[in-house]
């Protein structure tokens, strides 16, 4: 029974995670993905066209102010940008915006953030 409940809970959480990380179109050309981190935090990754480039916005919302996160953006598998950010009030979150060159074909963008104090990791990706 407990095993059945555990499997059911896992399946439910997986379905929830899948539904949360499904693309949500704010603009016809925008691509947005959301998801949950390994802890209590959530992440968001958005890509939108910007004068022939791709404007990429990565966000982590932990509801805790003052947390330090190390973040990275990968573009087609290579490191495009990285840095350190601190969550700020009122929502205890941070976001990062970077422009990427729109390479020929489909571009794959990966967003990864890690809290070195708690070990929590957020990871998401999209294709544009």
């Amino acid at each position, binding site marked *: 029974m407990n095993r059945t409940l555990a499997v059911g809970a896992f399946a439910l959480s997986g379905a929830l995670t899948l539904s949360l990380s499904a693309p949500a179109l704010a603009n016809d050309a925008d691509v947005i993905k959301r998801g949950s981190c390994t802890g209590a935090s959530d992440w968001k990754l958005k890509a939108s066209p910007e004068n022939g*480039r791709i404007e990429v916005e990565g966000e982590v919302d932990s509801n805790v102010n003052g947390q330090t996160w190390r973040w990275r953006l990968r573009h*087609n598998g290579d490191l495009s*940008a990285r840095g350190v950010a601190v969550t700020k009030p009122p929502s205890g979150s941070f976001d990062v915006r970077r422009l990427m060159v729109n*390479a*020929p074909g489909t571009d794959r963008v990966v967003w990864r953030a890690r809290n070195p104090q708690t070990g929590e990791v957020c990871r998401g990706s999209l294709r544009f």
Partner: protein
Amino acid sequence: MSATEGPTKTARPGRRRPVVQFVAVGLVLASALAVLTGWFSQRAAQDEAVQDAKSTTELLARAVVVPALPSGPALTSAAELDRFDRLIRRRLRGADVLRVKLWDASGTVLYSDEPRLIGQQFELADEQRRVLATGGTDAEVSDLSKSENVYERPLGRVLEVYTRVEGADGEPLMFELYYAYDDVAVRAGRVRGAFLPIAVGGILIFLVVTVPLVWLLARRLDEASSERERLLRAAAQASDAERRRIARDLHDGVVQDLAGTSFALSASARDVAGGTPLDRGRLRQGLEDAASGVRHSLRSLRSLLVEIYPPDLTGPSLPSALDDLLAPASANGVDVSVELADTSELSDAAAGLIWRTAQECVRNALRHADPRTVRLTLAIHHHLDAPALARLEIADDGTGFDAGQPSDSHHFGLRGLRDLATEAGGSLVVTSSPAAGTTVVLEVPA
């Protein structure tokens, strides 16, 4: 007077003409200078702007591009392009750069701030190949018809500057920047604005200063020309009148006398050849009359010769020359009185002018005034603090004339003498009125 006013009035347009020509030439020169200054300013500003663009491009290439290039092959991944793009865009912000391109030797655009160009390949021009091969920097106005410049067409006229850089692995690359050509025009305008007032203003100031001087010079030349023309006309009229007078004198005097003598001699010859007894007394009287007529003709011819070609007049010879001059008047029954001071100290110029004045006055009196008396007085006035002054006065009791009326042709001689007296530092005054005779007074330095 009317004879002297006429030429002055007609000469005014002639006086204006050289001034107008001078101003016109000056304005043409100023205009040409303005055009040349504009052209040279344009060239100088263009050269300066191009040189500045080259220096800026070389500086950005060394300070921004080379340090930003990744190690290994240049810009082969999307992430490298992202980092390079962000860096270049941040560093070139506010640098008046319209376009950035980074080429490899094959003509492939490795990077551009216009992402659609990245990865495209174009034919490189010879100058670009040379820069890639040998280094250096070159600049030219972009040929917007080329396919590589398709995205620059909306930018208008642009100046492209390219220089060679090397990737981390030593690969030769060409860094190219595009600038607005309007900056060159703006700079040319500034240079032209700085030099134009100096160049053109100098000419205009020169014109403003010199036009009054040219006007004055033209007026003096015009007046001198008018005076010369008047004197020439007077001289021609005087010469013509003189020839007529000589012809008339010869016809009325010597020719008539010689004709009479000829008739008398012919009559005497007929008496000698005739069959009648020879009346020696009558023959002698006829011959003496003929001799007297010939002597009279000789005197008349001598007086005429003196008038035509005056003797070399000096102070000492002036009294005898005046006697010869007055001889015809005496011969015509005019009562002539002469009162002369000592003329031995007179200068030749003064003696000549006195003789000519006397000649003109006596001639006018005999010809026009029908006088009974002619009185000639020559005095020398000595002053302690000034040069001696010779004063000639010739007065007749003839018909006279209205001295206030404009002069007719036979008074040109007096006008000419007045000019000569003025030039000699003296004066000539004519006093006359109808039926009251004429008095002419000449005063000249002795």
